[in-house]
């Protein structure tokens, strides 16, 4: 894999995390697409939960490291609550009220630790624009109780200075790459290395989760398919032996034929007129 294909996106710069209250201002929503695809990612170590949406249990015993969804959710406001398995929604350990889900978007909601180790919920808008033929999209999200990190591929930093709860992304040549996460500016490996199989025409979203202090750092991956593009064309011949239609000489011949006919006709006509 050529590392030059990574667009180095500064942490924070390309972050699609949106404040829950600010979601309503999302404007790139076509009028006909009232539903959004919503996934839920569990990145809080050792804490299985039940997930309630608008007071109804939607996920039962949702385990750390699991990804749920996508659900098709109508545009609107949702109350999301996480409880210990089996406990009533009233005793939620983490909740967000009136979370605005815009229409026509693809969203991942991550339950994770903040940099200081406190549980929180962060929504990310997933970039589901098409990738060029032959490419794959890699998105890395820092959702762990850990300091600033760099993400390396084949030992070379590709995303630098990534902080919680931000993301970095780039479209890269499809294929396999060995990746790891190091403390920013160092060679101290925090997570990995792991083989990343970046399938063409997909987005692979890797979440760094857990806690550095608790030695529970790990990754959760989510894949979005169907982002492929067709090749620019299929050039498959330069010999000309199979050419159909007509060549330039044909136009010459046709032109000459027409001229001869016309010329001869005019002469005939003028000759006859002359004789009268």
């Amino acid at each position: 894999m050529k590392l030059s294909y990574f667009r180095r996106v500064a942490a924070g710069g390309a972050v699609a995390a949106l404040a829950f209250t600010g979601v309503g201002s999302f404007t790139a929503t076509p009028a006909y697409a009232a539903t959004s695809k919503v996934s839920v990612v569990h990145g809080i170590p050792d804490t299985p939960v039940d997930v309630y949406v608008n007071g109804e249990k939607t996920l039962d015993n949702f385990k750390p490291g699991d990804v749920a969804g996508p659900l098709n959710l109508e545009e609107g406001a949702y109350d999301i609550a996480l409880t210990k398995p089996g406990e009533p929604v009233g005793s939620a350990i983490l909740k967000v009220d009136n979370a605005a889900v815009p229409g026509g978007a693809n969203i991942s909601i991550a339950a994770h630790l903040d940099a200081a180790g406190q549980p929180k919920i962060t929504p990310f808008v997933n970039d589901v624009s098409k990738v060029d033929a032959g490419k794959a999209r890699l998105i890395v999200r820092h959702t762990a109780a850990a300091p600033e990190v760099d993400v390396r591929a084949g030992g070379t930093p590709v995303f630098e200075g990534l902080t919680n709860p931000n993301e970095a992304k780039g479209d890269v040549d499809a294929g396999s790459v060995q990746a790891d996460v190091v403390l920013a500016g160092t060679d101290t490996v925090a997570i990995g290395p792991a083989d990343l199989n970046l399938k063409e025409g997909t987005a692979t979203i890797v979440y760094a989760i857990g806690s550095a202090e608790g030695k529970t750092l790990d990754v959760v991956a989510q894949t979005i398919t169907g982002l492929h593009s067709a090749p620019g064309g299929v050039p498959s011949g330069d010999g000309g032996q199979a050419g159909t239609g007509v060549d330039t000489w044909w136009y010459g011949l046709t032109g000459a034929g027409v001229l001869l006919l016309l010329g001869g006709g005019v002469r005939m006509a003028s000759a006859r007129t002359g004789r009268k």
Partner: protein
Amino acid sequence: MTVRNRGALAAMAAGVAALTVATLVACGSQPADDVGTEEATALASATPSPPAAAAVPSVPVTTGELPADAATVPPVRLVIPQLDVTATVNAVGINERTDEFEVPPSVDQIGWYRYGPGLEADAGSVVIAGHVDSAKQGKGAFFRLRELDQGDTLTATGSDGRARQYRVVAREEYAKTKIPLDRYFARDGKPRLTLITCGGPFDAETRRYRDNIVVTAVPA
């Protein structure tokens, strides 16, 4: 009849002769009409997605493991008895410079688009492209592709050794500027085999054919 008249008559006769030849050539160069366009289009329509469910439906849960390498079955050999063609199939991708399909340079070999479905897929278009010809190497494996007709059979053998039969349902010709490539490189819709080569009028200056010939086949 005057000499002048005879000259005029000769000119007209020559004109008629020239036009006759031109007409004959033009008729002889007409490619066969497209067949099966509707079938090919219908194959490409995606399976309808379920309607947006109620506000909070039940949700699939997956373990968030890093994606594994998918087990695709590349085609390694294609046999077209009708055209007397047996060709080796190479797994190919995209030409980095042109962003186009990387058709194998050797004209007796053909290329399978390795980013799309393999022979194992139960949906989408398995694409194999080959040269119609080359200035240096002469006729290619797909020289006579446009002679294929509805009902002709093909055999694609996968890397697993299994031979799979296909039946031609469509043969179409598109200007390269108009060909609906998204449909032929789709990864959804019914499983199908799509063969592509060049055709149509040849521009001797740019050494390019104007058109693509596309043959669509379904599992027989």
